[in-house]
Each structure stands twice: as structure tokens, then as C-alpha cells.
């Protein structure tokens, strides 16, 4: 039963990754593409983390998984901001 829930979570998570990928490909400019990217980071990885935490052997592993997700959240939020800001500045210079 737990396995089933975990798989559903993981599959949904990967679905969000697909959304992020397709958004990265199809959206018209950098800033909208960054929006697509952050969906993959937050929801995609979050659901995958939740699913794998359910399948993990121990509480310690589950906590480690959660911490990795939080780290990716913080890092990718900052990174997306940096990229967007950099693109803005270079756009002004052209």
C-alpha cells in the first residue's frame, strides 16, 4: 500500500519534471522559461522526495532526503534570480 502511494507520488513528480522540460523548450523567452524551471524544482523534486522518503528504509534517510530537497529549493531559487537579473542587465547593455 505504501509502495503504491510512493509510486504515485514519484510518477506525479516526474510529470512535473516533464512539464518543466517542455516549458523550457516551448516558452518564448528566458524569463518564462525560468518559471517553468522552478515548477520542476519545487513540485517535481518535492513529490519525488516524498515518494522516495516513503520507500526509504529508515527515518534518518527520509530526513536526509527532505534536507536535500530544501537545499535544492534554496539553491535553485537563488540561481533563477541570478540568471534573470543577469539577463536583464545584459539586455540593457545591448
Amino acid at each position: 500500500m505504501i509502495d503504491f502511494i510512493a509510486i504515485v507520488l514519484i510518477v506525479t513528480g516526474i510529470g512535473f519534471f516533464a512539464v518543466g522540460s517542455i516549458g523550457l523548450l516551448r516558452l518564448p523567452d528566458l524569463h518564462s522559461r525560468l518559471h517553468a524551471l522552478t515548477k520542476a524544482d519545487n513540485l517535481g523534486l518535492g513529490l519525488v522526495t516524498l515518494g522516495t522518503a516513503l520507500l526509504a528504509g529508515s527515518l534518518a534517510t527520509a530526513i536526509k532526503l527532505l534536507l536535500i530537497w530544501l537545499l535544492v529549493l534554496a539553491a535553485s531559487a537563488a540561481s533563477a534570480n541570478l540568471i534573470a537579473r543577469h539577463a536583464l542587465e545584459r539586455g540593457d547593455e545591448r
Partner: protein
Amino acid sequence: MNDSGLVNSLTGSAITICVLALLVTLMLGLVRALQGPSLEDRLAAVLLLGTGGVAFLLLLAVLWSAPALLDVALLLALLAAVVAAAMTRQESRRD
């Protein structure tokens, strides 16, 4: 690293399919890295690859009961941020 009972079970196969699907998704994202047109677009694709890579490693870690892969995922997340910082500090005029 030993295989847990997970690898050969139905759950294991399901996870393997998920890993495969994830890899296909990442391949799609890589097209953006190939096309650009700007460095920022390629960096966005690299970040997607980084986050997807973390998911890839998490799934493998659970599939094979290999906690070492969690360390790899941690390092990947950290270094992806460093690469993003390095790429965006490419300012040519400000400094």
C-alpha cells in the same frame, strides 16, 4: 552496496520505469542547452539537468539501497548553485 528486495519486485520495476522516463525528460531539456540562444538559456537547461540529476540519484539510491548516492545528490545540488553563480558573474562591464 547490496541490492535490496526492491530491485526485483514490482515496485522496483516501477521505479526503473520512472528513472527511464526522467532520463527522457532530461534529454528534452538538453535540447534547450544545445539551442540557446543565450548563455542564460543554456544555464537554465543545466540547472534543470542538475535538479533532474538529483531526482535521478534519489530514485537510484532508494532502488539499490545505496545511501552513498544521496551524498552524490547533495554534492550535485551544491555544485549546481556554484556553477550558476560562476556563470552569472560573467559581467563584462560592471567589473
